[in-house]
């Protein structure tokens, strides 16, 4: 158990030390948000209505761009070989890695969602729903990203393939997240879409570590 915590601590420390890479992803998020009023016009009513969807699209693109950081870098610098020859089960190592990435992503998002919400005039009543969808949706994106990263690890230019593989799988998360925010903005209860997101997340949490480990082992052939 202490070992797992040490490993998680190590991964989080790596995430923090490499915060320059996160900074560029955060900057990307902010640019998407800042540019939208110029593209859609400055009408506050329209922007406020579209805000949850826009913020979610920016978050989704951000998590797509962050996938390369997961196993591809480890394969390049030889760390993956160490993971593959470690007595600690690969499923656990993979999970710890993805979990640290998810925590870093959530940390970054929870901070930048406030200026983004302010900028787009998001209704204050929608903010709790939006943050709830982050906590239920971002882990799903991270786990899916881990699977795609592990599957495409041996391929030379895998970024395009990852995007192609993942885009359709991201759609349910996006739909449920935005419908929860829409319901919240009309003052309606929004538990149902959140429960759907939680179900997807639970499914992936139980399956993803095994799929990732199998893909990493198989990718060596």
């Amino acid at each position, binding site marked *: 158990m202490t*070992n797992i915590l*040490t*490993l998680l601590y*190590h991964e989080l*420390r*790596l995430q923090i*030390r*490499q915060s320059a890479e996160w900074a560029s992803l955060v900057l990307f998020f902010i640019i998407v948000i800042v540019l939208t009023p110029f593209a859609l016009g400055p009408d506050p009513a329209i922007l406020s209505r579209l805000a949850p969807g826009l913020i979610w699209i920016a978050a989704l693109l951000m998590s797509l761009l962050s996938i390369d950081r997961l196993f591809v870098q480890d394969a*390049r*610098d*030889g*760390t993956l*070989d*160490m*993971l*593959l*020859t*470690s*007595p*600690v*089960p690969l499923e656990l*190592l993979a999970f710890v890695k993805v979990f640290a990435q998810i925590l870093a992503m959530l940390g970054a998002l929870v901070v930048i969602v406030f200026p983004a919400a302010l900028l787009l005039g998001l209704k204050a009543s929608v903010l709790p729903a939006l943050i709830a969808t982050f906590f239920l949706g971002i882990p799903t994106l991270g786990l899916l990203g881990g699977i795609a990263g592990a599957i495409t690890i041996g391929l030379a230019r895998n970024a395009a393939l990852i995007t192609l593989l993942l885009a359709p799988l991201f759609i349910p998360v996006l739909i449920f997240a935005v419908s929860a925010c829409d319901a919240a903005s009309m003052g309606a209860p929004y538990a149902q879409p959140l429960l759907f997101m939680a179900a997807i997340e639970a499914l992936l949490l139980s399956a993803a570590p095994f799929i990732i480990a199998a893909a990493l082992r198989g990718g*060596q*052939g």
Partner: protein
Amino acid sequence: MLKVQNLACRRTRRVVFREIELEAEPGMVWLVTGPNGSGKSSLLRVLAGILGPMEGKVTWQGEAIDADPAAHRARIHYIGHVDALKSALTVRETLAYWRALHGGPSVEDEQCLGPVGLAKLADRPVQNLSAGQKKRLSLARLALHDAPLWLLDEPLTSLDAAGRGMLGKMIDAHAAKGGIVIAATHDPFDLKGAQFLKMEAGR
């Protein structure tokens, strides 16, 4: 102890090597030599259990290594030709990570950095190390935990003469304790009593 019978390995569609036979008893050092592309690295990866063989088998004390992969991983040190270091960490933090990855009992930082000549650099960030020092750090893993089987892929790369001497001493000491070393190298490496396995050029 370690026995390799009629081993063949395939990468994508190419057969890299076949009919490899090797037997290593405690205290033996094997040097795997051969030109680039002859499958030295692939052989070590098969022995480490990272790659599956196309045919043939690898056994440890009579038991196939893929029968209990976790037990096999606990008894090996596999050091690949890339250093597996993260430039954002310090030397000490890197060792802490390796300890957690390996799990078993380990020695103190200084005891493990001493033999590779890095004792004074424990708090230096990895990105400030030279290529040779990085190689030394990756070899420090050998001293961190006890494992009977060392699999070293091109361990001499970027090491200076002193570094090579130091690695030779580590290997001798390990063999004297009854350990097994299998090292792939295309540089001449002067080791007392080493056995040679010559791999032929790829086909």
